[in-house]
């Protein structure tokens, strides 16, 4: 069975918010209607977004890391928001595992949002229904878009390629390989919701700098006597390279 999902690489996300704006652009222009913003130019603007990038500082100064953390609906394999819906407006598609809201059936009781531990659902104050990330279902199932563009808008927008899209149930897919090879994990595993979206952890990036690399790269005979550098007469790293 197919389970479409995103895999988000925290190691390369630079926090540019391109996925946020492209998501908003695509979904606000879609057939389901605009994602309402309340008083966008007022003193207290309020808006509906399916995707956000948050920033966290991990560690104690000076040993800190800045982690940019994109968050959207995780399309859980056992979505707690679906069974609580009194009308059946909230559902998980059998064919590709996308969790969706039928905007024509939703009564706007907001109960599903209480039942989502991730805060993935957003009530649209203009349409008065619950909305959420659709994994750009209209893009990924499109038959008119070019093949390369049948991906969520956020994935196409990411300049760092931090967002991978694919079927996490297919062990050969790009996303499954990334999860397996790079320790992909799920958020809040303690609730047993089994999110389909995974995150790839930060990796330690090391650059080895040898002292001689800083002074001279190619000087096999150690004959460079020009100032201010002194000629090296002891064997250097390149003497052992082969």
């Amino acid at each position, binding site marked *: 069975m197919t389970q479409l999902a995103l895999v988000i690489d925290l190691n390369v996300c630079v926090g540019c*918010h391109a996925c*946020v704006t492209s998501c908003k652009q695509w979904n606000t222009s879609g057939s389901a209607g605009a994602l309402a913003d309340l008083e966008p130019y007022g003193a*207290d*603007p*309020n*808006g*509906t*977004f399916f995707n*956000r*990038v*948050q*920033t*966290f*500082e*991990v*560690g*104690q100064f000076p040993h800190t890391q*800045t*982690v940019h*953390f994109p*968050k959207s609906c995780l399309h859980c394999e056992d979505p*707690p928001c679906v*069974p*609580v*819906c*009194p*009308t*059946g*407006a909230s559902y998980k598609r059998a064919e590709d595992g996308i969790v969706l809201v039928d905007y024509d*059936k*939703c*009564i*706007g*009781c*907001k*109960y599903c*949002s*209480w*039942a*989502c*531990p*991730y*805060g993935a*659902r*957003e*009530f649209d104050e203009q349409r*008065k*229904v619950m909305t959420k990330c659709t994994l750009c279902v209209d893009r990924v199932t499109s038959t008119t878009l070019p093949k390369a563009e049948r991906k969520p808008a956020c994935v196409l927008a990411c300049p760092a390629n931090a967002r991978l899209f694919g079927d996490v149930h297919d062990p050969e897919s790009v996303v499954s390989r990334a999860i397996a090879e790079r320790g992909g*994990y*799920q*958020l*809040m*595993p*303690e*609730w047993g919701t089994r999110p389909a979206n995974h*995150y790839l*952890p*930060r990796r330690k990036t090391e650059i080895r700098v040898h002292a001689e690399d800083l002074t001279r790269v190619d000087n096999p005979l150690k004959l460079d006597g020009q100032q201010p550098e002194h000629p090296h007469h002891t064997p250097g790293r390149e003497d052992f390279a082969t």
Partner: protein
Amino acid sequence: MKPAFSVIFLTTLLGAAQGLFLTLFATEVSALGQLSRADSQRLLVVGSLVALLLSGLGLLASFFHLGRPERAWRSAAMWRTSWLSREVIALPLFMLCVSGYGAAHLLGSGGTVLMGSVAVLVCLALFVCTAMIYASVRFLQEWASPLTLVNYLLLGCASGLTLATLLAALLGLATLVTPYALAATLLTALACLTRGASLLRNARLKPKSTLQSALGIKHPKIVQKAQGFMGGSFNTREFFHARTAALLRSVKWAFLLLVFPLPLLCLAIGVAASSTALLVLAFALQYTGLLAERWFFFAQANHPQNLYYQTIS
């Protein structure tokens, strides 16, 4: 969570209506107070009408919670999985049963005990549905406890009995006032114990989710630097009460006083001095206290999604 007044009114009004109905039926079955036929009929008809009125007001309040009230009829569809859907079925059913029960007494037709028994079952089912809407959300640990169900049941019965005491006094049924007041005292005391237990439990709760599990980063020190936007969103509107801890504490002590000792004091003096005004005050205080109690019930619940929305920037 941000307290939703529509739901606060719905649950408190329903609780009082259900408690009142249970009291009426218990009175009929046990032949409490040795009422004359006419008196009994008067009490049961008027009482059913009041219970119906309260639950109708509750139903009305619930519509204000919906973004699309015109589609409310759809919400009976998913009764197999959703407690909310089950409540949507149980509430009109309860109102129907109470109407039937009251009408049967009004018309003097037989079978009232059978009708009442069915209504009692529906009434108890409604208590379960209402409470389980909250108790079944496992992410809200303050709610996810059997105590939630017990509290809804006992607080509903307590307020219903206080109202029944007032009703008996207004209808001039002196033989019922004292036993009702005693029962109200007992139920209020019991509810005080269980609500106190849930307050103690919630004070000792350890959140299951942490910033570490929310991000999947296992470092003890993580600080949010930006939530991704400067304005508001549904996440900041719906899940934060935006009140100070001091206000929450005040509301807690206010409801502990208003729901439990003060109405009991008014009941005791009211019954001893045969003062209807004090009985009115008893119910008014307890109902106001229950509004505060339900407000606190919401405000105290801490949703795990709040972990993601700690710092604007």
